[in-house]
Each structure stands twice: as C-alpha cells, then as structure tokens.
C-alpha cells in the first residue's frame, strides 16, 4: 500500500510520536524544530486529505486492518477534512510564532515542555476530528484537554494556575459527562463506531438511556465549546494563558468541540426522531441568543483586551450554535463556515494581542493608549479583525453573517434577523472601544521607544489577518467545503428515518442543496 493510503493514521500518529521525542531531545532548538516539522507535516497531510476527499469522497481507514465496526475506524468526510485543515493550519502558524513569543513568557527550562504539550494538544484535536469511534473521541479529548491544562498553567501570570485549575475542574466534568453519554449509547447499541451507532440507534430511540445519553453529551460538549452559560472557564483561560496558547485555543479547541457536537447530533442522533420530539432546537436557539447578547454586553465592559475578545468568543460561539438551531442545510452551512471564519479571525486577534503584550507590556485598555500611533500596522490588524467580528463586508465575518441571515430568512424567522443584526451592533461597540483608545489617546509616556517586533511573530499574525480578509473575498474554499459538508450531514440525517424530522415546517428533502444555489425556488414558499 502506498503512503497516501495511510494518511489518516499518519495525521494523528506523526504528532503523537513527535511529542515524546521533544521530551527526549530537550536541548537547544531541537524541540522547536521537531514540533515545527510535525505541525507542518500535519498541515500537508490534512491538505492532501482534503484534496482526496474532494475528489474521491469519504475515506474510511481501518486501524490495524480490523474492519469497522469491530476495529477502530478513522473516517474522513468533507467536514472532517475541513476542520483538520483549520486545526493543523493554525498549529502550523502558531508554532513559528511561539518561539519568539514564549521566550518572553515562559522560563527557558520549560520550553521543551511547552512544545511537548503543544504537539500533544494538536494530536488530541486532530484525533478527535478524524476518528470514527465514539470512545476514541473521548480518549483524544482527554489528551487535548490535559495538555491544554498544562499549557494554560505555563502562563507567567500567577492567575494562570487558577485559570488552569478552573478549566481543569470544568473540563473534567465535561469529559465525564461525555464518557457517561458514550457509555449509555454503547449500552443501548452495543457498538462504539459512530456510523454504526447511528444506524442502530433507530431501534432503541426514545428509550430513557438514550435520552439520558443525549442530555449528558449535550451538556458535556457544551461545556467544552463554552456555550453560554457554561463558558466560565473560557475568559480566564484565554486571558492568562501564554499568548500563543490563547490564540491556538481560541482558534481550534472550541471549534473542535463544535465539530464533536455536530458529529453526535447528526451522525449519531440524526437518524432518530429525538429532535422532532424534544425541543432541542428551541433550547439551542435560546442558549445561542442569550450567549450572543449577554457575552457581547459583558465584553463591552471589559478593561482588558484579552478578556474583551474572550467574551466576544463566547458571543461568536452563540452565532455558531444559532446556525445549528435553524434546522436547515443553510443554517448548518452557516455554522460550519463561521466555525472556520471565526477560528481564523480569533486566531489572528490573539496572535496580535501577543504582539501588543510584547510592545506595550500588557493588553489592558489603559496600556494600549495610542497604539495606533506607536505601531500603526499592529493596530490596523486588530481593527481589521474587529471588523470581521462585526461582520463588515470584505471580511470573513461577513460571509458567516450572510449565511446566518439567509438561513433565518429562509426559515421565516423574521425576529431572528432583527436579533442577529442587533447583536452585531454590540460588536461595533466593543470593537470601537479599542479603536478610540488606540487612535485618540496619546501613547503612555513611561514606555520605551517602539523596538522592532520579532519577525517570527509578525509574519504568522500578518498571514492570519490577510486570511481574515481573503476568506471574506474568496469563499470558494470555505463556502464550497462547508456547503458540501452540511449537505452530507444533512442527507445522512434525511436518508434515514427522519425524512420530515428536525424541522417539520421545512420540507427537508427540498431544502437539501437546492436553495443554496437557487434562492429563487425556495422564495416562493418564503413569500
């Protein structure tokens, strides 16, 4: 068998091997180079997988040649490939950034540890994404979570420890809930393979253990993805972790959790009537909306940029979940697109905030006075990303918002349209707080003259800012992938029992794939 057939395994195995190696070869630049190689190879592999999936459809890879559902299956479909590209891409950008960044933030003797944990975290996130086995999801989730706790605790702030501890407690509760949920499902279906589980669940749907499993999984995953009101770990974790860790987490960790949610909802529970019988949609809608408004409102009153953008993340996760709750293929597309776009935007913001810390010694609003005069490009980058959070055309955020609004209009949710645009206004307010401080205040006098920032940090940040604009102008990759991924999930759902499930108000069969390219058709129903 050629090497390319083993790419799904290599995607996870390579960083997994790299992690202990960085501990063994802890001297000098070796851990850095090793981690860098691993992350770039991971990116190359995930891009290659994306191409393969794009051309040949879903890839199923049996670990150890044990055929699924008995053995562990790695399953790469369009959604998987898309998320893999996001995760490995962010890692590939974060690592070059990290060398100069951690030099200022982490004691030298702990550097190798940082790389080990970073690569482990990457392994975990990639593993969660690629595996087709429910228990495997849990295992990789633990790998990524445990390494994340360490990464956060590496922050130089004393509160980093507290933040890590807080995340540890909540994250463990979440993981426990998830494993309970998976256990219950295993109990009822006798399989751990996700696809198989979905097929078998139809027979036992409606039984109490299945409902309990759904509840445990929903709460557990929601904790991980920081869905309001389970978001309390997030602001501290982002604010006190080392900059590069905050960027990587903001861009990937919560997004992978969303992916897990999609996986379980659509690939496992999608084939059941549960969503028509339970008010899941309404519940998600409510949580998403309150997240959008409450978290944005809290963000407005933050005095530290990292915390401000952390709360903005909670709000943006609200948008992601909102797309899910429409129960339409377009809404799902919006979710998947925003998952990517927000990952890129927030990644850029936190990388830039790392530069800000380096330049003015902190990220509190009082410290960034006059940043626009001190470092015009840095400030401009933050403004551009801020505009993307608002959803100004020409940035990635606009594309997400377009699809969200489109989904809301298609399903006839007029009042939601109003709410979505209102919450964007809150984003204008918190972004403009930064703009005014940066451009209308004099720089602080106690700061040394600006010294040139390390290129290793500037280039990845700049690349991500450019990506934020690029994905707002050329959407063939993002929209193309997201649409196909959404259709695939949706069809898997529709093909089974629930041809009229999810949303009885919408003719599900008609909504797949048609209205996305021919809006005129569904308009008749809309008007």
């Amino acid at each position, binding site marked *: 068998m050629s090497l390319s057939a083993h790419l799904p395994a290599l995607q996870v195995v390579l960083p997994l091997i790299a992690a202990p190696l960085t501990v063994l070869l802890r001297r000098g630049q070796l851990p850095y180079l090793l981690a860098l190689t691993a992350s770039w190879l991971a990116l190359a592999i995930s891009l290659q997988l994306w191409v393969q999936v794009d051309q040949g459809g879903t890839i199923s890879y049996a670990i150890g040649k044990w055929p699924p559902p008995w053995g562990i299956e790695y399953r790469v479909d369009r959604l998987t490939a898309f998320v893999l590209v996001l995760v490995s891409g962010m890692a590939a950008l974060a690592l070059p950034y990290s060398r100069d960044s951690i030099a200022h933030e982490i004691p030298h003797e702990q550097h190798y540890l940082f790389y080990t944990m970073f690569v482990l975290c990457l392994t975990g996130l990639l593993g969660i994404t690629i595996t087709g086995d429910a228990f495997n999801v849990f295992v990789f989730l633990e790998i990524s979570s445990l390494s994340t706790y360490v990464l956060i605790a590496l922050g130089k702030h004393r509160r980093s420890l507290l933040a890590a501890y807080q995340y540890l407690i909540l994250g463990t509760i979440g993981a426990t809930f998830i494993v309970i949920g998976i256990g219950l499902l295993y109990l009822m279906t006798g399989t751990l393979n996700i696809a198989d589980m979905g097929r078998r669940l139809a027979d036992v749907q409606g039984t109490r253990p299945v409902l309990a499993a759904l509840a445990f999984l929903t709460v557990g995953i929601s904790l991980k993805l920081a869905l309001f009101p389970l978001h309390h770990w997030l602001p501290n974790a982002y604010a006190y972790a080392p900059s590069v860790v905050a960027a990587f987490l903001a861009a990937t960790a919560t997004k992978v959790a969303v992916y897990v949610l999609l996986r379980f909802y659509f690939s496992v529970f999608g084939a059941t009537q549960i969503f028509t019988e339970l008010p899941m949609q309404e519940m998600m809608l409510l949580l998403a909306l309150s997240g959008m408004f409450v978290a944005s409102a809290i963000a407005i009153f933050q005095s530290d940029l990292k915390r401000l953008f952390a709360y903005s993340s909670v709000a943006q996760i609200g948008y992601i979940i909102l797309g899910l709750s429409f129960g339409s293929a377009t809404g799902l597309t919006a979710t998947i697109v925003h998952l990517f776009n927000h990952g890129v935007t927030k990644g850029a913001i936190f990388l830039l905030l790392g530069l800000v810390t380096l330049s003015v010694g902190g990220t509190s609003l009082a410290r960034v006075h006059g940043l626009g005069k001190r470092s015009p490009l840095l400030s401009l980058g933050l403004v551009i990303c801020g505009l993307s959070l608002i959803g100004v*055309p020409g940035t990635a955020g606009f594309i997400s918002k377009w699809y969200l609004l489109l989904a809301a209009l298609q399903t006839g949710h007029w009042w939601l349209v109003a709410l979505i645009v209102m919450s964007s206004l809150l984003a204008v307010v918190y972004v403009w707080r930064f703009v005014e401080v940066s451009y209308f205040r004099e720089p602080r006098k106690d700061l040394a003259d600006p010294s040139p920032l390390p290129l290793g940090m500037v280039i990845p940040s700049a690349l991500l800012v450019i990506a934020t604009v690029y994905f707002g102008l050329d959407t063939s990759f993002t929209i193309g992938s997201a*649409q196909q991924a959404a259709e695939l999930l949706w069809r898997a759902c529709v093909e089974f029992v629930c041809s009229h499930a999810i949303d009885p108000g919408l003719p599900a069969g008609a909504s797949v794939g048609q209205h996305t390219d021919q809006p005129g058709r569904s308009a008749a129903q809309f008007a």
Partner: protein
Amino acid sequence: MLGSILISLAGRRPNLREGITLATALLLLLGTILLLPTILAGARPSLALWSLMPGLEIAFQVEPLGMLFALIASSLWVVNSIYSIGYMRANREENQTQFYVCFALALAATMGIAFSANLLTLFIFYEILTLVTYPLVTHHGTQAARDGGRTYVGILLGTSIVFFTPALILIWLVAGTTDFVPGGILHGQLGHAGMAGLLALIVFGLAKAALMPVHRWLPAAMVAPTPVSALLHAVAVVKAGVFSVLKVVVYIFGANNLAEAGLAGAADWLVVLAGFSIVAASVVALFADNLKRRLAYSTISQLSYVTMSAAILAPLSLIGAALHIAAHAVAKITLFFAAGAIYTAAHKTEVSQLDGIGRRMPWTMVAFSIGAISMIGLPPAVGFISKWYMLSGAMAAEHWLVVAVIALSTLLNAGYFLPIVYRAFFLPPRAEEADHPHGEAPVLMVVALCLTASATLLLFLFPDLPLALARQAIIF
C-alpha cells in the same frame, strides 16, 4: 477603458504628497471622460472581478447614472485637491499624509459605488467608504472629533448592518440576483406591504442619504476639516447615499414595475417622510448660527429632495433627482469652500460674525452667493433646472403635497441663505474688527471656489450632458 480607471484606483493608494494626489485626480477625471462617449453611444462596458459567494459576484458596470455620479465626483475631486492643499497648508494641519491617503481611498470607494454592477458590490464599497472617511472626520483627534466620529460610525455602520444587510439578503432570496438591471429585478414577488417594508429597510439602511431620523451623523461629521466637509459631505458620501437610493429604485425596484403592479403606493410613505425631512431640516437650518451646521442641515434638506423625487417614481421626477445630485454637488461644494475660506482667512465660524465680510473677501462671497442662488433654485444657477424637473414630475404625477413642499422649502432656503448674503455685502463690519484686517484666503482656495461657482452657472447654460445621461438611465 475600464482598466484605466481600475489601475488608477489601485495606484492611488500609496500617495504621499499633494503632487501625486493632483496627478491621480486628473488621471481619474481623464479616465472617466474617456469613458463618456462610449456610454453616450449606448455601450455598457462591464467587468466581473470574482465570485464572492456562489452566484454573487463583485462586478463593475458603467451605466449612465453611475457615469453621471463618477463625473461629478472625479471632477470635483480635482478642484477639491487644489483647495485642500491651500487649506491644509494655511491651517498647518497635522497628519497630512494620512489625510491625503484616506481621501484617495474614499474616492476609490466612491468610484466603486458609482460603477458597481450589483447591489452587493455597491454595499461593499459603501461600507469601505464609511470606514475610510472615519479617520477624515476625526482628523483633529480632539474630544469633539471623537464624539462626532462615534455618532458618524455608529449611525452609518449601524444602519447599514441593521437595515441594509437583511434587505440585501432578502432581495437576493426573492429575486435570485442582486444585479442592477434596467427595469428592475423585482416583479411582484413581494406584496404591497413587503415592498413598502423592503423600501424602508433600503432607505434607512442607506443612512448616507440622511433622511430623517437617521440624519444625525451629518451635523456630527462637521467636526472634520472643511475640505472633508466640502467634498465628502457635500459630494461623495451623501451623494453615495442618494445615488444608491436612486439606483435601487431605478434598477432594483424598477419604477415602471412598481407602477404597473399597482404598487406605486408602496412608496407613498417615503414621499411624506422625505417631505417632512425637507421642511424640518430647513427650519433647523434657519435657526443655526454656526455656518457649517447651517450648511449641513441644508444638505439634509436638499438630499431629501432627491429621495422624495425618487419615491414619486415618475420619469420626469427621476430625471430631476439625478440632475439634482449634480446640481447640489457643485453648489454645495462652493458653499463649503467659501465657509472654509472664511475660516482660514478670518477665523470665523458663526453666521452672526459675518457682517460686512463681503467687502474684504469679494471673490469668496460672490461665489457663495451664486451657490446660495442655486440652492434656492433661482436662475441663472443649475439648481433651477433640477428643481424645474422635479416640480414638473410632481405635477405630472399629481402629487400636490410634493409641489407644496418644494414651494415651502424654496421660501425657507431663501430665508436662511439670503440673510448671509445680505450681512456680507450690506451690513457694515463690526467696529471691534477694524484692528484685525484680513483679505482673501490663500490663492489656491479662491481659485477652487471660483471654479465650482462658475460650474454652477455653466451647468445652467449647458445642462445637456447630465440631462442626456439621466435620460438614458431612466427612459431606455
């Protein structure tokens, strides 16, 4: 042909000094003029850049209305560049480089709006225009500038997000396209209430048209340096607003479509609201003592003429609306130039300080008077012609309310402009000013304002070109 414009659009970004600004301004004007014969001959050169989302392109197309708008903006930019060099030097402003760069970007965005081939492209450039003019509005960096800038961005960005984005998506959903097509793309897919609602979203979403009650950004923006107020808030930004309204009415709704579908009434509320804006803004202007503030409220009132005429949907009044964009542009820029010249030479900002200033600054004040005459709508200024068309349109459509509003506001216009002229020429200067002698403003500024004043007169004598363009757009 179009390439020349696009190259100049891109090439203007790194401008550092006035020379380059002037050269690019001239180049842009030249490019636009070169395109003119093609358009008059009926051709519609277009250029699709790339696809933003499936079925949604960023594309440009040159059509008569856009041509008219581009001509106004690019020719006035040349004059304004001359003026701002004089102004910025005389007042020793800071951050001049940033000023010129943002100015060029703002013009690029304006050109993008003028030549956009679909509503999405228009929207993108519309937002860019808001963002690049923000640094211009807040140029002074003071507390007042910050507050003004906050209102400016808050209203313009807020309304476009809250109203325009949903309207845009709704149009796309209903019509399956956002292209500007002569005759409109909405053919009765939405009912009466739907049309009225959509129109409301559009008109309030395009807050740059400054229809009440979303007009407050315009007085707030007057904290900007005068050349900014002159070009952007007399020409580029506000005209982008009304131009977009006009374009949407003509190419998206389609005036004939509306009339045929018996939906003409959907725009009635807009006529009333615009009429109210005209009168109310004029009354505010009547009592404003700050000269720039008076001019700002006059702009609000004049812009609502365009919106109102567009909402009447009669061909004649649509032509009048298009003409009024041009007429108001040249006249109002003259007035703002004059205000800036007065500030530079005499450091006066209030109307009540202007006694006898006409004797010291004769050129400036004569130009001011010409602008004022055009605003009132008297011959021999171009304002008369556009008002003529708008009135004929209103009469043809038997909209007597509109006729009454135009008549009333003409009186009000006279009421707030003529006293300034009277003060300047017929009242003796105040005694305490005798020891502060001053003459005209720097020569570059005077040249610029004389140019625009003479344009106001020339367009009255030779209105053929804008008229031809407007006719082509509205009557195919």
